Protein backbone atom coordinates (compact mmCIF):
# COMPACT_ATOMS: atom_id res chain seq x y z
CA UNK A 1 0.00 0.00 0.00
CA UNK A 2 1.24 3.42 -0.77
CA UNK A 3 1.81 6.15 1.68
CA UNK A 4 -0.53 8.45 -0.09
CA UNK A 5 -3.38 6.03 0.01
CA UNK A 6 -3.38 4.32 3.31
CA UNK A 7 -3.23 7.33 5.53
CA UNK A 8 -6.68 8.48 4.53
CA UNK A 9 -8.17 6.31 7.21
CA UNK A 10 -5.75 7.85 9.64
CA UNK A 11 -6.45 11.35 8.60
CA UNK A 12 -10.20 11.68 8.56
CA UNK A 13 -11.02 10.29 12.01
CA UNK A 14 -8.42 12.51 13.61
CA UNK A 15 -9.75 15.52 11.84
CA UNK A 16 -13.27 14.66 12.80
CA UNK A 17 -12.41 14.38 16.43
CA UNK A 18 -10.36 17.47 16.59
CA UNK A 19 -12.08 19.77 14.17
CA UNK A 20 -10.89 23.25 14.52
CA UNK A 21 -12.93 25.98 12.88
CA UNK A 22 -10.00 28.36 12.78
CA UNK A 23 -8.42 28.21 9.37
CA UNK A 24 -4.70 28.35 9.57
CA UNK A 25 -2.17 26.97 7.24
CA UNK A 26 -0.11 25.30 9.86
CA UNK A 27 -1.13 21.67 10.00
CA UNK A 28 0.34 21.27 13.45
CA UNK A 29 -1.64 24.11 14.99
CA UNK A 30 -4.90 23.48 13.20
CA UNK A 31 -5.39 20.20 14.99
CA UNK A 32 -4.55 19.98 18.61
CA UNK A 33 -2.61 16.80 17.99
CA UNK A 34 1.06 16.80 17.20
CA UNK A 35 2.07 14.34 14.55
CA UNK A 36 5.09 12.24 15.42
CA UNK A 37 6.67 12.28 12.01
CA UNK A 38 8.11 15.11 10.00
CA UNK A 39 5.55 14.51 7.28
CA UNK A 40 2.80 15.56 9.61
CA UNK A 41 -0.60 14.28 8.64
CA UNK A 42 0.85 12.40 5.70
CA UNK A 43 3.12 10.31 7.87
CA UNK A 44 2.59 7.58 10.39
CA UNK A 45 0.25 7.43 13.32
CA UNK A 46 1.58 7.21 16.79
CA UNK A 47 1.13 3.47 17.15
CA UNK A 48 2.89 2.65 13.93
CA UNK A 49 5.63 5.13 14.78
CA UNK A 50 6.70 3.24 17.88
CA UNK A 51 7.15 0.13 15.82
CA UNK A 52 9.07 1.97 13.12
CA UNK A 53 11.34 3.80 15.54
CA UNK A 54 12.21 0.59 17.32
CA UNK A 55 12.91 -1.30 14.11
CA UNK A 56 15.09 1.44 12.70
CA UNK A 57 17.01 1.63 15.95
CA UNK A 58 17.65 -2.08 15.93
CA UNK A 59 18.63 -2.25 12.27
CA UNK A 60 21.04 0.60 12.74
CA UNK A 61 23.33 -1.67 14.68
CA UNK A 62 24.22 -3.45 11.44
CA UNK A 63 26.81 -0.73 10.72
CA UNK A 64 24.10 1.64 9.48
CA UNK A 65 24.50 5.01 11.19
CA UNK A 66 22.76 6.67 8.27
CA UNK A 67 19.65 4.72 9.22
CA UNK A 68 19.89 6.22 12.70
CA UNK A 69 20.21 9.67 11.17
CA UNK A 70 17.15 9.03 8.99
CA UNK A 71 15.32 7.88 12.11
CA UNK A 72 16.11 11.15 13.87
CA UNK A 73 15.17 13.16 10.79
CA UNK A 74 11.91 11.37 10.30
CA UNK A 75 10.84 11.68 13.92
CA UNK A 76 12.10 15.21 14.34
CA UNK A 77 8.88 16.49 16.02
CA UNK A 78 9.42 13.86 18.70
CA UNK A 79 12.78 15.40 19.51
CA UNK A 80 11.42 18.91 19.45
CA UNK A 81 8.41 18.39 21.69
CA UNK A 82 10.04 16.63 24.57
CA UNK A 83 6.86 15.84 26.47
CA UNK A 84 4.94 13.89 23.89
CA UNK A 85 5.56 10.34 22.72
CA UNK A 86 7.74 8.89 25.46
CA UNK A 87 8.18 5.52 23.83
CA UNK A 88 9.20 6.89 20.45
CA UNK A 89 11.44 9.45 22.07
CA UNK A 90 13.34 6.70 23.82
CA UNK A 91 14.36 5.03 20.58
CA UNK A 92 14.93 8.25 18.69
CA UNK A 93 17.23 9.70 21.32
CA UNK A 94 19.23 6.49 21.40
CA UNK A 95 19.46 6.58 17.59
CA UNK A 96 20.73 10.15 17.77
CA UNK A 97 23.38 9.20 20.30
CA UNK A 98 24.42 6.22 18.22
CA UNK A 99 24.66 8.31 15.09
CA UNK A 100 26.79 10.98 16.79
CA UNK A 101 29.17 8.44 18.30
CA UNK A 102 29.59 6.62 15.01
CA UNK A 103 30.10 9.85 13.11
CA UNK A 104 32.76 11.01 15.54
CA UNK A 105 34.64 7.73 15.26
CA UNK A 106 34.35 7.48 11.49
CA UNK A 107 35.27 11.07 10.81
CA UNK A 108 38.21 10.80 13.20
CA UNK A 109 39.52 7.87 11.21
CA UNK A 110 38.78 9.45 7.83
CA UNK A 111 40.35 12.77 8.72
CA UNK A 112 43.43 11.09 10.16
CA UNK A 113 43.75 9.13 6.98
CA UNK A 114 43.33 12.00 4.59
CA UNK A 115 45.31 14.61 6.51
CA UNK A 116 47.99 12.27 7.79
CA UNK A 117 48.67 10.88 4.39
CA UNK A 118 51.87 9.17 3.57
CA UNK A 119 53.86 10.70 6.39
CA UNK A 120 51.76 9.06 9.03
CA UNK A 121 51.00 5.74 7.43
CA UNK A 122 53.86 5.03 5.15
CA UNK A 123 53.36 2.74 2.18
CA UNK A 124 50.12 1.43 3.63
CA UNK A 125 48.45 4.69 2.66
CA UNK A 126 48.86 3.96 -1.00
CA UNK A 127 47.37 0.54 -0.50
CA UNK A 128 44.32 1.83 1.33
CA UNK A 129 43.37 4.94 -0.60
CA UNK A 130 40.33 4.45 -2.73
CA UNK A 131 41.48 5.47 -6.14
CA UNK A 132 44.38 3.07 -6.01
CA UNK A 133 42.18 0.27 -4.79
CA UNK A 134 39.79 0.98 -7.61
CA UNK A 135 42.57 0.90 -10.15
CA UNK A 136 43.90 -2.33 -8.76
CA UNK A 137 40.55 -4.05 -8.83
CA UNK A 138 39.58 -2.47 -12.13
CA UNK A 139 36.49 -0.88 -10.63
CA UNK A 140 36.84 2.44 -12.36
CA UNK A 141 36.22 0.94 -15.76
CA UNK A 142 32.69 1.01 -16.93
CA UNK A 143 32.03 -2.48 -18.20
Amino acid sequence: MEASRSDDANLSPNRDRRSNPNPTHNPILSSSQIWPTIDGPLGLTEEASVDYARRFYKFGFALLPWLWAVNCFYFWPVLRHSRAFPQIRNHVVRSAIGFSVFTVLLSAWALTFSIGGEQLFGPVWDKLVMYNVADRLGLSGLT
Partner: protein
Amino acid sequence: MDRTEQRARSILDTLGEELIGILTPVSICMFTVVLLVCLLNSDPSSPSSASFSSIATAAYSESDSDSPWAKLLGAFLNSLVFVAAITLATFLLVLLFYLRCLNFLKLYMAFSAFVVLANLGGEILILLIDRFRFPIDSVTFLILLFNFSVVGVFAVFMSRFSILITQGYLVVIGVLVAYFFTMLPEWTTWVLLVALAVYDLAAVLLPVGPLRLLVEMAISRDEDIPALVYEARPVIRNHHDSRLVQRRVWREQRPSNSSDDVENNEVVTVVRAEEEVSVSVPLIERSRAEESSETFLEGIGLGSSGAIKLGLGDFIFYSVLVGRAAMYDLMTVYACYLAIIAGLGVTLMLLSVYQKALPALPVSILLGVVFYFLARLFLEVFVVQCSSNLVMF
Protein backbone atom coordinates in the same frame (compact mmCIF):
# COMPACT_ATOMS: atom_id res chain seq x y z
CA MET B 1 -13.12 36.09 6.02
CA ASP B 2 -13.19 32.77 4.28
CA ARG B 3 -13.94 34.17 0.93
CA THR B 4 -11.06 36.58 0.90
CA GLU B 5 -8.78 33.88 2.10
CA GLN B 6 -9.92 31.63 -0.64
CA ARG B 7 -9.37 34.26 -3.24
CA ALA B 8 -5.98 34.96 -1.78
CA ARG B 9 -4.94 31.46 -2.74
CA SER B 10 -5.30 31.93 -6.42
CA ILE B 11 -5.06 29.30 -9.03
CA LEU B 12 -1.35 29.85 -9.14
CA ASP B 13 -0.97 28.75 -5.55
CA THR B 14 -2.77 25.45 -5.80
CA LEU B 15 -2.01 24.56 -9.38
CA GLY B 16 1.46 25.98 -9.15
CA GLU B 17 2.25 24.01 -6.02
CA GLU B 18 1.43 20.76 -7.72
CA LEU B 19 3.34 21.67 -10.84
CA ILE B 20 6.37 22.76 -8.85
CA GLY B 21 6.17 19.50 -6.97
CA ILE B 22 6.83 17.60 -10.15
CA LEU B 23 8.98 20.07 -12.04
CA THR B 24 11.51 20.48 -9.23
CA PRO B 25 12.68 16.87 -9.07
CA VAL B 26 12.78 16.61 -12.86
CA SER B 27 14.93 19.73 -13.01
CA ILE B 28 17.18 18.53 -10.21
CA CYS B 29 17.66 15.22 -11.97
CA MET B 30 18.54 16.90 -15.26
CA PHE B 31 20.84 19.40 -13.59
CA THR B 32 22.72 16.67 -11.73
CA VAL B 33 23.18 14.60 -14.87
CA VAL B 34 24.48 17.64 -16.78
CA LEU B 35 26.85 18.35 -13.89
CA LEU B 36 28.14 14.79 -13.89
CA VAL B 37 28.57 14.83 -17.66
CA CYS B 38 30.49 18.09 -17.55
CA LEU B 39 32.68 16.94 -14.67
CA LEU B 40 33.47 13.44 -15.83
CA ASN B 41 33.61 13.78 -19.59
CA SER B 42 36.00 16.65 -19.74
CA ASP B 43 38.61 14.78 -21.76
CA PRO B 44 37.40 14.30 -25.32
CA SER B 45 40.02 11.75 -26.07
CA SER B 46 38.38 8.95 -24.16
CA PRO B 47 36.51 6.69 -26.55
CA SER B 48 33.09 6.56 -25.00
CA SER B 49 31.74 4.11 -27.50
CA ALA B 50 34.27 1.45 -26.70
CA SER B 51 33.84 1.46 -22.98
CA PHE B 52 30.15 0.84 -22.64
CA SER B 53 28.52 -2.26 -23.92
CA SER B 54 25.04 -3.20 -23.01
CA ILE B 55 21.97 -4.56 -24.64
CA ALA B 56 21.51 -1.22 -26.32
CA THR B 57 24.70 -1.70 -28.29
CA ALA B 58 24.34 -5.40 -28.85
CA ALA B 59 23.48 -5.20 -32.50
CA TYR B 60 25.98 -2.63 -33.54
CA SER B 61 28.67 -0.74 -31.75
CA GLU B 62 29.51 2.55 -33.27
CA SER B 63 32.99 3.47 -34.27
CA ASP B 64 34.13 6.79 -35.59
CA SER B 65 35.22 5.53 -38.93
CA ASP B 66 31.82 4.46 -40.19
CA SER B 67 29.88 6.45 -42.71
CA PRO B 68 26.79 8.32 -41.50
CA TRP B 69 24.52 5.90 -43.28
CA ALA B 70 26.10 2.92 -41.55
CA LYS B 71 25.83 4.68 -38.21
CA LEU B 72 22.17 5.42 -38.80
CA LEU B 73 21.44 1.87 -39.77
CA GLY B 74 23.34 0.58 -36.80
CA ALA B 75 21.49 2.93 -34.50
CA PHE B 76 18.17 1.68 -35.85
CA LEU B 77 19.19 -1.91 -35.23
CA ASN B 78 20.28 -1.10 -31.70
CA SER B 79 17.02 0.68 -30.95
CA LEU B 80 15.02 -2.18 -32.37
CA VAL B 81 16.80 -4.66 -30.17
CA PHE B 82 16.38 -2.48 -27.12
CA VAL B 83 12.70 -1.77 -27.64
CA ALA B 84 12.07 -5.45 -28.30
CA ALA B 85 13.84 -6.35 -25.06
CA ILE B 86 11.78 -3.81 -23.17
CA THR B 87 8.54 -5.04 -24.68
CA LEU B 88 9.38 -8.59 -23.66
CA ALA B 89 10.27 -7.54 -20.16
CA THR B 90 7.09 -5.51 -19.82
CA PHE B 91 4.94 -8.39 -20.96
CA LEU B 92 6.74 -10.55 -18.44
CA LEU B 93 5.85 -8.00 -15.80
CA VAL B 94 2.22 -8.05 -16.91
CA LEU B 95 2.23 -11.83 -16.68
CA LEU B 96 3.71 -11.81 -13.19
CA PHE B 97 1.24 -9.20 -12.06
CA TYR B 98 -1.58 -11.24 -13.51
CA LEU B 99 -0.41 -14.28 -11.60
CA ARG B 100 -0.30 -12.16 -8.45
CA CYS B 101 3.38 -12.69 -7.74
CA LEU B 102 3.48 -9.38 -5.94
CA ASN B 103 6.01 -10.41 -3.33
CA PHE B 104 8.43 -11.49 -5.98
CA LEU B 105 7.99 -8.20 -7.79
CA LYS B 106 8.57 -6.20 -4.64
CA LEU B 107 11.68 -8.19 -3.80
CA TYR B 108 12.91 -7.74 -7.33
CA MET B 109 12.32 -4.02 -7.14
CA ALA B 110 14.25 -3.79 -3.88
CA PHE B 111 17.06 -5.86 -5.34
CA SER B 112 17.27 -3.75 -8.47
CA ALA B 113 17.32 -0.55 -6.41
CA PHE B 114 20.16 -1.99 -4.36
CA VAL B 115 22.09 -2.96 -7.48
CA VAL B 116 21.66 0.48 -9.01
CA LEU B 117 22.62 2.33 -5.86
CA ALA B 118 25.54 0.13 -4.88
CA ASN B 119 26.94 -0.80 -8.25
CA LEU B 120 26.27 2.21 -10.45
CA GLY B 121 26.45 4.63 -7.56
CA GLY B 122 29.72 3.15 -6.43
CA GLU B 123 31.18 3.38 -9.91
CA ILE B 124 30.19 6.99 -10.33
CA LEU B 125 31.58 7.85 -6.91
CA ILE B 126 34.83 6.13 -7.81
CA LEU B 127 34.96 8.09 -11.05
CA LEU B 128 34.45 11.31 -9.12
CA ILE B 129 37.08 10.37 -6.54
CA ASP B 130 39.47 9.51 -9.32
CA ARG B 131 38.82 12.76 -11.11
CA PHE B 132 39.33 14.93 -8.05
CA ARG B 133 41.94 12.71 -6.36
CA PHE B 134 39.98 12.81 -3.14
CA PRO B 135 42.01 11.07 -0.41
CA ILE B 136 39.34 8.83 1.02
CA ASP B 137 40.26 5.37 2.15
CA SER B 138 38.52 2.24 1.06
CA VAL B 139 37.10 1.32 4.48
CA THR B 140 35.28 4.61 4.90
CA PHE B 141 34.14 4.50 1.31
CA LEU B 142 32.71 1.03 1.70
CA ILE B 143 30.89 1.92 4.89
CA LEU B 144 29.38 5.04 3.33
CA LEU B 145 28.35 3.25 0.17
CA PHE B 146 26.83 0.40 2.14
CA ASN B 147 24.86 2.82 4.30
CA PHE B 148 23.68 4.77 1.31
CA SER B 149 22.50 1.72 -0.61
CA VAL B 150 20.77 -0.06 2.26
CA VAL B 151 18.85 3.00 3.37
CA GLY B 152 17.94 3.57 -0.27
CA VAL B 153 16.51 0.07 -0.45
CA PHE B 154 14.51 0.77 2.69
CA ALA B 155 13.23 4.01 1.22
CA VAL B 156 12.11 2.34 -1.97
CA PHE B 157 10.85 -0.88 -0.50
CA MET B 158 8.93 0.26 2.52
CA SER B 159 5.62 1.85 1.87
CA ARG B 160 5.62 4.22 4.81
CA PHE B 161 8.78 6.19 4.86
CA SER B 162 9.84 9.77 4.96
CA ILE B 163 8.48 11.36 1.79
CA LEU B 164 11.45 13.63 1.31
CA ILE B 165 14.01 10.86 1.62
CA THR B 166 12.09 8.54 -0.69
CA GLN B 167 11.82 11.27 -3.29
CA GLY B 168 15.51 12.04 -2.91
CA TYR B 169 16.52 8.44 -3.42
CA LEU B 170 14.27 8.06 -6.46
CA VAL B 171 15.89 11.12 -8.02
CA VAL B 172 19.33 9.69 -7.23
CA ILE B 173 18.42 6.38 -8.88
CA GLY B 174 17.20 8.30 -11.90
CA VAL B 175 20.43 10.28 -12.07
CA LEU B 176 22.61 7.18 -11.83
CA VAL B 177 20.82 5.23 -14.55
CA ALA B 178 20.58 8.30 -16.78
CA TYR B 179 24.29 8.96 -16.51
CA PHE B 180 25.05 5.47 -17.65
CA PHE B 181 22.72 5.77 -20.57
CA THR B 182 24.46 8.92 -21.72
CA MET B 183 27.50 6.81 -22.36
CA LEU B 184 25.89 5.08 -25.29
CA PRO B 185 27.14 6.07 -28.72
CA GLU B 186 25.69 9.26 -30.03
CA TRP B 187 23.55 8.15 -32.95
CA THR B 188 22.23 5.22 -30.96
CA THR B 189 21.15 7.55 -28.18
CA TRP B 190 19.09 9.81 -30.40
CA VAL B 191 17.42 7.08 -32.39
CA LEU B 192 16.78 5.17 -29.17
CA LEU B 193 15.08 8.16 -27.58
CA VAL B 194 12.76 8.62 -30.53
CA ALA B 195 12.04 4.89 -30.66
CA LEU B 196 11.20 4.86 -26.97
CA ALA B 197 8.88 7.83 -27.38
CA VAL B 198 7.00 5.95 -30.09
CA TYR B 199 6.97 2.76 -28.01
CA ASP B 200 5.65 4.71 -25.05
CA LEU B 201 2.81 6.09 -27.10
CA ALA B 202 1.93 2.63 -28.35
CA ALA B 203 2.26 0.82 -25.04
CA VAL B 204 0.06 3.19 -23.09
CA LEU B 205 -2.60 4.15 -25.59
CA LEU B 206 -3.12 1.04 -27.68
CA PRO B 207 -5.58 -1.42 -26.15
CA VAL B 208 -3.08 -4.24 -26.57
CA GLY B 209 -0.23 -2.27 -25.09
CA PRO B 210 1.39 -3.95 -22.08
CA LEU B 211 1.35 -0.87 -19.95
CA ARG B 212 -2.30 -0.24 -20.53
CA LEU B 213 -3.06 -3.83 -19.57
CA LEU B 214 -1.02 -3.37 -16.42
CA VAL B 215 -2.82 -0.19 -15.43
CA GLU B 216 -6.22 -1.69 -16.11
CA MET B 217 -5.41 -4.74 -14.03
CA ALA B 218 -4.20 -2.56 -11.21
CA ILE B 219 -7.37 -0.49 -11.34
CA SER B 220 -9.67 -3.47 -11.51
CA ARG B 221 -8.00 -5.15 -8.59
CA ASP B 222 -7.51 -1.91 -6.73
CA GLU B 223 -3.90 -2.75 -6.11
CA ASP B 224 -0.60 -1.07 -6.42
CA ILE B 225 1.89 -1.96 -9.08
CA PRO B 226 5.18 -2.49 -7.29
CA ALA B 227 7.50 -0.31 -9.28
CA LEU B 228 9.63 2.75 -9.04
CA VAL B 229 7.39 5.76 -9.40
CA TYR B 230 7.96 9.26 -8.20
CA GLU B 231 4.98 10.71 -6.43
CA ALA B 232 4.83 14.36 -5.62
CA ARG B 233 3.79 15.30 -2.13
CA PRO B 234 0.02 15.61 -2.07
CA VAL B 235 -1.15 19.16 -1.69
CA ILE B 236 -3.08 19.63 1.50
CA ARG B 237 -5.10 22.75 1.55
CA ASN B 238 -6.46 23.80 4.86
CA HIS B 239 -10.11 24.12 4.14
CA HIS B 240 -12.21 26.39 6.24
CA ASP B 241 -14.57 23.52 6.64
CA SER B 242 -12.27 21.10 8.30
CA ARG B 243 -14.67 18.25 8.56
CA LEU B 244 -13.45 17.07 5.18
CA VAL B 245 -10.28 15.41 4.18
CA GLN B 246 -8.12 18.05 2.64
CA ARG B 247 -7.29 16.36 -0.57
CA ARG B 248 -7.67 17.76 -3.95
CA VAL B 249 -8.23 15.87 -7.11
CA TRP B 250 -7.19 17.47 -10.28
CA ARG B 251 -10.42 18.11 -12.09
CA GLU B 252 -10.94 20.59 -14.83
CA GLN B 253 -9.41 23.86 -13.96
CA ARG B 254 -12.01 25.77 -12.08
CA PRO B 255 -11.70 29.49 -11.53
CA SER B 256 -10.16 30.19 -8.21
CA ASN B 257 -13.06 32.18 -6.90
CA SER B 258 -15.52 29.39 -7.37
CA SER B 259 -18.17 29.23 -4.77
CA ASP B 260 -17.56 27.39 -1.56
CA ASP B 261 -20.26 24.89 -2.35
CA VAL B 262 -18.60 23.77 -5.50
CA GLU B 263 -15.33 23.24 -3.75
CA ASN B 264 -17.04 21.48 -0.90
CA ASN B 265 -18.69 19.15 -3.33
CA GLU B 266 -15.46 18.49 -5.05
CA VAL B 267 -13.69 17.55 -1.87
CA VAL B 268 -16.68 15.61 -0.61
CA THR B 269 -16.69 13.51 -3.72
CA VAL B 270 -13.10 12.64 -3.14
CA VAL B 271 -13.72 11.69 0.43
CA ARG B 272 -16.71 9.59 -0.39
CA ALA B 273 -14.93 7.83 -3.16
CA GLU B 274 -12.01 7.06 -0.97
CA GLU B 275 -14.17 5.86 1.82
CA GLU B 276 -15.92 3.50 -0.50
CA VAL B 277 -12.51 2.13 -1.34
CA SER B 278 -13.08 2.73 -4.96
CA VAL B 279 -10.33 4.63 -6.51
CA SER B 280 -11.86 7.70 -8.03
CA VAL B 281 -8.70 8.59 -9.81
CA PRO B 282 -6.75 5.61 -10.96
CA LEU B 283 -3.29 4.77 -9.87
CA ILE B 284 -1.64 5.17 -13.11
CA GLU B 285 1.65 3.64 -13.75
CA ARG B 286 3.28 2.09 -16.67
CA SER B 287 6.23 -0.13 -16.40
CA ARG B 288 9.26 -0.77 -18.45
CA ALA B 289 12.22 -2.90 -17.75
CA GLU B 290 15.71 -1.63 -18.28
CA GLU B 291 18.52 -3.41 -19.96
CA SER B 292 19.56 -4.61 -16.56
CA SER B 293 15.89 -5.50 -16.15
CA GLU B 294 14.85 -3.22 -13.38
CA THR B 295 11.26 -2.19 -13.07
CA PHE B 296 11.18 1.46 -13.82
CA LEU B 297 7.97 3.07 -14.71
CA GLU B 298 7.09 5.66 -17.19
CA GLY B 299 4.08 7.69 -17.69
CA ILE B 300 2.25 10.24 -15.72
CA GLY B 301 -0.85 9.84 -13.73
CA LEU B 302 -2.68 10.76 -10.62
CA GLY B 303 -2.49 9.03 -7.32
CA SER B 304 -5.57 8.46 -5.29
CA SER B 305 -4.77 11.47 -3.18
CA GLY B 306 -4.56 13.63 -6.27
CA ALA B 307 -0.82 13.85 -6.19
CA ILE B 308 0.88 13.64 -9.55
CA LYS B 309 2.89 10.54 -10.21
CA LEU B 310 5.62 10.41 -12.77
CA GLY B 311 7.39 7.21 -13.64
CA LEU B 312 11.10 6.99 -13.03
CA GLY B 313 11.71 6.01 -16.65
CA ASP B 314 10.60 9.49 -17.67
CA PHE B 315 13.10 11.09 -15.32
CA ILE B 316 15.79 8.88 -16.79
CA PHE B 317 15.12 9.57 -20.43
CA TYR B 318 14.64 13.30 -20.01
CA SER B 319 18.00 13.38 -18.27
CA VAL B 320 19.60 11.22 -20.95
CA LEU B 321 18.47 13.70 -23.57
CA VAL B 322 19.78 16.67 -21.64
CA GLY B 323 22.99 14.84 -20.76
CA ARG B 324 23.64 14.00 -24.36
CA ALA B 325 22.95 17.64 -25.27
CA ALA B 326 25.49 18.64 -22.63
CA MET B 327 28.10 16.60 -24.42
CA TYR B 328 27.85 18.98 -27.30
CA ASP B 329 27.50 22.38 -25.71
CA LEU B 330 25.61 24.14 -22.96
CA MET B 331 23.53 26.06 -25.48
CA THR B 332 21.83 22.87 -26.56
CA VAL B 333 21.29 22.05 -22.89
CA TYR B 334 19.26 25.21 -22.36
CA ALA B 335 17.24 24.61 -25.49
CA CYS B 336 16.50 20.99 -24.62
CA TYR B 337 15.71 21.80 -21.00
CA LEU B 338 13.11 24.37 -22.00
CA ALA B 339 11.67 22.03 -24.59
CA ILE B 340 11.35 19.19 -22.10
CA ILE B 341 9.75 21.36 -19.46
CA ALA B 342 7.31 22.70 -22.04
CA GLY B 343 6.51 19.15 -23.10
CA LEU B 344 5.96 18.13 -19.49
CA GLY B 345 3.62 21.06 -19.02
CA VAL B 346 1.65 20.02 -22.09
CA THR B 347 1.46 16.47 -20.79
CA LEU B 348 0.20 17.68 -17.42
CA MET B 349 -2.47 19.73 -19.11
CA LEU B 350 -3.54 16.73 -21.15
CA LEU B 351 -3.59 14.72 -17.94
CA SER B 352 -5.96 17.19 -16.38
CA VAL B 353 -8.20 17.01 -19.42
CA TYR B 354 -8.23 13.27 -20.01
CA GLN B 355 -7.88 12.04 -16.44
CA LYS B 356 -6.23 8.78 -17.31
CA ALA B 357 -2.79 7.31 -17.72
CA LEU B 358 -0.77 9.15 -20.29
CA PRO B 359 2.66 8.56 -21.73
CA ALA B 360 4.93 11.33 -20.52
CA LEU B 361 7.76 10.61 -22.94
CA PRO B 362 6.48 11.37 -26.45
CA VAL B 363 5.77 15.10 -26.32
CA SER B 364 8.84 16.03 -24.30
CA ILE B 365 11.27 13.76 -26.13
CA LEU B 366 10.09 14.82 -29.57
CA LEU B 367 10.23 18.49 -28.65
CA GLY B 368 13.62 17.96 -27.06
CA VAL B 369 15.08 16.18 -30.06
CA VAL B 370 13.72 18.77 -32.48
CA PHE B 371 15.09 21.62 -30.42
CA TYR B 372 18.46 19.90 -30.01
CA PHE B 373 18.95 19.63 -33.75
CA LEU B 374 17.62 23.11 -34.39
CA ALA B 375 19.93 24.58 -31.78
CA ARG B 376 22.91 22.60 -32.96
CA LEU B 377 22.46 23.24 -36.65
CA PHE B 378 21.03 26.75 -36.77
CA LEU B 379 21.13 28.51 -33.44
CA GLU B 380 24.78 27.92 -32.77
CA VAL B 381 25.90 29.30 -36.09
CA PHE B 382 23.73 32.34 -35.60
CA VAL B 383 24.91 33.06 -32.07
CA VAL B 384 28.56 32.48 -32.90
CA GLN B 385 28.36 34.79 -35.87
CA CYS B 386 26.63 37.45 -33.82
CA SER B 387 29.14 37.19 -30.99
CA SER B 388 32.16 37.23 -33.24
CA ASN B 389 30.85 40.34 -34.94
CA LEU B 390 30.02 41.88 -31.54
CA VAL B 391 26.37 42.23 -32.41
CA MET B 392 24.97 40.17 -29.54
CA PHE B 393 26.71 38.37 -26.74
